[in-house]
């Protein structure tokens, strides 16, 4: 039995949900066990949803994992607000090549 549990823990620790910040299934389980139970606070604790993909790759997977570990159905969990820019943009491009201060 303990061998099976070890194998399951190993799989959870190697199952990466957020590719930007390497957040695993085990990280979500640990966050919930610690007492972080809201997608907003799990976002702040693990940095999931906040990498260069801004949740476009990971949101569904992370919300499903939060649902598995909290018992709250995924469709009852609010996905954290997506912030601009939609895709990462170089500061120089946003600055428009301006060389002067004003």
């Amino acid at each position: 039995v303990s061998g099976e549990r070890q194998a399951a823990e190993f799989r959870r620790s190697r199952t990466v949900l957020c590719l930007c910040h390497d957040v695993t299934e085990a990280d979500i389980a640990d966050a919930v066990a610690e007492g972080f139970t809201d997608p907003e606070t799990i976002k702040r604790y693990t940095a999931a949803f906040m990498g260069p993909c801004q949740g476009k790759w990971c949101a569904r997977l992370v919300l499903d994992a939060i649902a598995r570990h909290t018992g709250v159905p995924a469709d009852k969990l609010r996905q954290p607000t997506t912030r601009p820019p939609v895709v990462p943009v170089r500061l120089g491009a946003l600055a428009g090549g301006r060389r002067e201060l004003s």
Partner: protein
Amino acid sequence: MAIPGATAGDPPTSCDAVIIGAGVQGLALAFELAERGMTDVVVLDARFPGSGASGRNGELIRSAFASIPWIRLFDRSLRLWHDLSARLDYNVLFVGRGYTVIASTDEEMTSWGEVLSRQAAYGLRTRRVSSDEIAELVRGINTDLAVGGLHQADGGFAHHDAVVWGYARAAARAGVAIHPYTTVLDVLVEGDRARGVVTDRGTISAPIVVNAAGAQSREVAALAGVELPVRRCRLEAMVTESLMPFMDTAISAIGIHSYAHQTSRGEFVGGTELEQPDPSNSLRGTQPLLFDMAHKFSLLIPRLAGVRMVRHWAGLVSQTEDMGPVLGRVPEVEGLFLTCGWLYGFMAAPAAGDQLAETIVTGRESDLIAPFGIERLRAGELVTETSLIHRPDQARAATGDATGE
């Protein structure tokens, strides 16, 4: 529950003190009250702890200000920051590798001579730095916009969410009850005494009520019949993708209204401001600030022009006419206390909690918070502080705020 330390149970019907707002101010105060033996304390928040400005600020920490009232309060805080992880038994990821205030013009640099003498007289670890020294502290900085500066060796930054969680856990462990998702509907005042609060989860009687409600502090004060002379304004910040470490020090460039640091993960995090404050009730980032941040940071540190912005967000503050906090008792309502009006509230929270707790427990107002009482704003006796990134608010603060979105 939302975060460790928050409770899922019902709020009690009475306690010794109710704190409205589970941001860094309210939680630091709760922890410091518990440290002094007052543990029957309830902290309420309409959302989850740290959901307001405490989780949206620039995270910077210094005591290198220009005026004595600011230096005294913030230097008490800086001392506390250095031991905070140990006191809370929680790593708040404080990094004390320096804070550099950058002058962008020779006039600005000259004006700081007197400030440096005052800081030295108070015992701050600040020194004048040349543009060459700044180029070592911030590799690749454009020295045309950094002609000199002032470096505080033991300033720095900390992780704002970890600070909220650290205070919440330590306070909860000492017996404080933290109730998220609980909205205060009324503050009870009988005659000249605070009596408690009415919430959407029941009434709580308490002889001490503290308004630590951040952007909502004006509305909360109004529930107690107190007019708080603050205006709600929006601030914006951004974060880039991670890059190789190139600056250990936190920075601000007063002349171009900018501040930033590089996190332990390598991201460049910073914010800028336009010439006028932005009265608003919206948490959306705006296009003018997006462009302003990109423009100023890629001019100040040209290597950033090739680095991608990942995220841009906004937060709300309640600001006063002199940009200082409103801290301490409300003279006409016994038992009602304020820790509001913060623009530099994250870095000041350890001292504000410590000194306000001392004031509440002993009944004697602390010298460090006395200059920041509500009476100064009512009398128009403002505290002049010249080293702030924020622009003086030209309109009178008490005129209320825009409706926002």
